């Protein structure tokens, strides 16, 4: 069936902020910066996910990424708090695999993407999870993303497999479609809310009724 998502169970103690505030130290309560890296096999749709999030577009002729491309997107809250996502869209091609540490080093969030029509890409995603568990920052927040959820009839990786693997590894899980925009904002919303929670835990009165709609944050009350 359609898009699935899950979040890992909460552990008893919260521990240190799960989103490390970024090496630049520019974070304060009002202006947060989140360094995010996308990893996954070539062709799973990483660049398309980022493009959908940053520009609201889908390019079916998306070019293979070389090295990594850097994009950023700032989201503003009504109380003038901003969250700036600094996104590394890495190349999934094998020759760049060894360079991945360049990009995930210091990342607060790793989004590991596979293509629901490709079991190989799911295996590759598990490789990246292991790599990050070994070499990534200990605080890194990981999300497992099954993309191309619009291709239901060609699905080869059941959502349950994704959910199960994510739960075992303490990751978020969501299925998205960069093509239809399904769940793309929800994906980033997780980190958005996360970053506010972890960096501004003192802000007890953070408005609970906010949702991201089409990359624009609106107050649900106002809708």
């Amino acid at each position, binding site marked *: 069936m*359609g898009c699935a998502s*899950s*979040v890992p169970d*909460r552990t008893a103690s919260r521990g240190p902020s799960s989103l490390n505030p970024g090496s630049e130290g520019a974070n304060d309560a009002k202006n947060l910066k989140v360094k995010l890296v996308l990893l996954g096999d070539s062709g799973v749709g990483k660049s398309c996910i980022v493009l959908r999030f940053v520009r609201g577009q889908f390019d079916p002729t998306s070019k293979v990424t070389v090295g*990594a491309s*850097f994009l950023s997107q700032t989201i503003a809250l009504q109380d003038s708090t901003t969250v700036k996502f600094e996104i590394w869209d890495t190349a999934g091609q094998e020759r760049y*695999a060894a360079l991945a*540490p360049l990009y995930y*080093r210091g990342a607060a969030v790793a989004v590991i993407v596979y293509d629901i029509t490709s079991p190989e890409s799911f295996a590759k995603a598990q490789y990246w999870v292991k790599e990050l568990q070994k070499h990534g920052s200990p605080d890194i927040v*990981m999300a497992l993303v099954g993309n191309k959820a619009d291709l239901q009839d060609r699905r080869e990786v059941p959502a349950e497999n994704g959910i199960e693997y994510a739960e075992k590894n303490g990751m978020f899980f969501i299925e998205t479609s960069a093509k239809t925009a399904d769940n793309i904002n929800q994906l980033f919303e997780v980190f958005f809310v996360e970053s506010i929670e972890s960096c501004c835990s003192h802000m007890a009165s953070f408005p609970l009724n906010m949702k991201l709609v089409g990359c624009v944050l609106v107050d649900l009350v106002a809708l």
Partner: protein
Amino acid sequence: MLPKCPIVPRANGYPIVPGACGFPSPMASDSVSPSSSSDSAYDSAAYQNPNPNPNPSDKPINAIDGQLMSSLVLADSTDSVNHEEGPPSSVNEGDIVDANVLASEESDRTVMVEVDVREEEEEEVQRSEAVVVEERETGGGGGEGEVWRVNSELEVDAPDSPNSSGYAGERGTSSASSACGTGEDDICQVRDGDFVNGVVESQAVWIPGKRHVDEDDASMSWRQRKKHFFILSHSGKPIYSRHGDEHKLAGFSATLQAIISFVENGYADEANNGDRVKLVRAGKHQVVFLVKGPIYLVCISCTEEPFESLRGQLELLYGQMILILTKSVNRCFEKNPKFDMTPLLGGTDVVFSSLIHSFNWNPATFLHAYTCLPLAYPTRQAAGAILQDVADSGVLFAILMCKHKVVSLVGAQKASLHPDDMLLLSNFVMTSESFSPICLPRYNPMAFLYAYVHYLDANTYLMLLTTSSDAFYHLKECRLHIEAVLLKSNVLSEVQRSMLDGGMHVEDVPVDPSPRSGSASPHLGQHSPERVREAYTGTGGPCGLWHFMYRSIYLDQYVSSEFSSPIGTPKQQKRLHRAYQKIYASMHDKGFGPHRTQFRRDENYVLLCWVTQDFELYAAFDPLADKALAIRTCNRVCQWVKDVENEIFLLGASPFSWWGKRIEKCFAEWPVGGLIAGHLRL
């Protein structure tokens, strides 16, 4: 519509954070040094294989001859018209006569194998099916048994159709290329058959990327492509093919490998150092091999481009591969001769195909020089000054480019950038803002540099190259600084204006040249109101001048006039490009003196070319142009180039060729005597 499945909300409304226990205590984030880690990636990718490739030179020579025949000479053989019905047979006897090694020119390590093909030369481009059948008939019987025996001895993947070992390309004639409106070396043959039609239709805009992936050497359309490029490993594994899917071409690749090994083997003495280049002629087809250690590059072409040009194209193709992977890939082959390189080049089809496409239009591919975007001198100075700032802060090269034209370029200290590296770098497509390892083959083929690329607008991009893999944020700051200065000093708007206005228009060649030291020399484009230019449309410049190209030897730069009406279409431009390429090759033959001129008239143009130690001028005129007038016009062009040199060239950059023998001479002469060293007289 998909059912929406939002993140499961928690009690407090937030998704849950994975706790520390979610991770099997990760190690500290250790950064692997990129160079060593990339090496190890290559190493680990190489699996061990105890059986290195069998040495094909052990095979009987006639066997290899047969391979050569069946694979290449068949270029001119024709296909079985109804091959579904025919028995697997028939390699035309007419095509397999003898292959003699006629000449070896050891001095330049080029071996020319002339294959004497007894066949009926056919100049018609649009040959009909009837002619095809006729050719088969003249072929007669005989010979085929031997070829097939040979195939089995070599254990090359035997073709399973009567045609599949054959490479039947299209004959290249000037009319052939004119039949081809796409600017691509596609099939130019028009048949009644239904499969060709889609390919023949012309395309206004060239779209990068691999086409015809469904083809392999058994497809007739594949064999009719006018120009093929292959990269393969010394064990015969396909690495890249311009047309068709590499994996489906394994058999063909193995055949090429066998041929190369055979030709190589004959010259084992000289095979020990350096690259080797070979040329095989088969009728109208040229097969050029370039051997780079474990990598073989092959071009099969019937475009009648000179051997030297094709060889240069293979060099660039190799350079592009090195730019992506560095020369350390060779190590993978040391460990495992059967190493499969294709995964390492995944997704780079578009890079290679756009390079191959540029062989059709970009003079930099044979001039080994770069071209600048015309800009007012102070504007370029401003751009250079800000780039110099960052070059002093640890950036190896800072390059501001607009499409394939350089706005400004600065290298740290003694570092200089080879024009070929610039070509390959600008051909390596990158996204809006990226940071990627690249290797500059002429700078250091063994090491990666890191390229920070940022597009300032749709066409203008800044490239900052560094040796440090950690430099991204520093380079990003540099870029922000540069961008701000460029905006403030209007450089970017000037760049856009220049893109629209173009540079030198032949219509603007001064008719009565002012003396060099005379009054204010006109700036580019200022002395030619649009309406004057309009009046010339369709006739070109003075005295029938249609186009020119001027290369400054010391600057490693060239400038060419904008294309206008007599050479308005991509097809005409490609033809002129080929004509220039040919005359360039002939001017750079051995015995090249300090001053040489050539005046050549054919049905398409008068081509006039003038080569001195300081510059080279190539000019195309109306085929009816008067010789004396053409010569006078060339002198005016040179004078004009001199007058506007500070707008069309980047002066003061350290060109690559400075660091050769010429350095003293260069300092003595440049810039005063750099451009015009004489007056052309014929």
